[in-house]
């Protein structure tokens, strides 16, 4: 059962990295998460949104990013979507340390972080249509039913 949900649309501007991860953290509070659980979620959201800003669109503010999320009794589900250039080879892009922006000190760790810090990760991409990232994370133990 969905307890609460939110949908945000914002320009691909780096200011919105902090905004979006903090909104999703706030949405998750009824799950009674630990500080570390929240930190993991914020990191994963930040990776997904940063990817849209750095890769999907060529200039800041050129396109829009859609973040939607909902919580159930014990789980958070998040979708981060852009309408940018798309990822030509998702399998390659999700490999650790793979980056197309080596000259700008990108670590190539984004998808690896999302995969490690969340319970599930799905990446769907189509050339010139955009990329959608689905992620979810459960509350392991505890979490009151308040």
């Amino acid at each position, binding site marked *: 059962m969905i307890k609460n949900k939110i949908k945000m649309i914002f320009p691909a501007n780096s200011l919105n*990295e902090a905004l979006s991860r903090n909104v999703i953290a706030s949405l998750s509070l009824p799950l009674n998460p630990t*500080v570390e659980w929240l930190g993991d979620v914020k990191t994963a959201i930040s990776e997904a949104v940063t990817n849209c800003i750095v890769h999907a669109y060529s200039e800041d503010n050129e396109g829009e990013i859609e973040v939607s999320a909902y919580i159930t009794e014990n789980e958070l589900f998040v979708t981060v979507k852009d309408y940018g250039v798309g990822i030509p080879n998702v399998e390659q892009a999700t490999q650790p340390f793979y980056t197309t922006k080596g000259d700008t*000190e990108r670590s190539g760790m984004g998808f690896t972080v999302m995969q490690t810090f969340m319970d599930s990760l799905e990446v769907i991409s189509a050339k010139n249509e955009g990329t959608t990232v689905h992620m979810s994370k459960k509350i392991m133990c505890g979490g009151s039913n308040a």
Partner: protein
Amino acid sequence: MDITYKVDNKILTIFLAGELDHHSAVFAKVTIDELLDKDIYNEVIFDFSRMTFMDSTGIGVLLGRYKKLKEHKVPVYARGAQGSIEKLLKLSGIYNIFIKLTR
């Protein structure tokens, strides 16, 4: 984010505080590079104890600074990371090149 530092006996300690992401990465790079360009240090220590958030953009920033220090064979240390930041440092292999301090 906020960056402060201390130099003691040619040992540079860089205190990172607040949030390091793609938005604050340019500020972090420029500020740290200015410090690194001032002198050739015997050691450089990155202190994460007052950091509240870092994502993989931060790893890119650290690797970039490490490359500069490696040219002068300056040993680089890391200390004070907790929670998700510590997990990220481990996952990215940073501790293979930054020596982890427990002091």
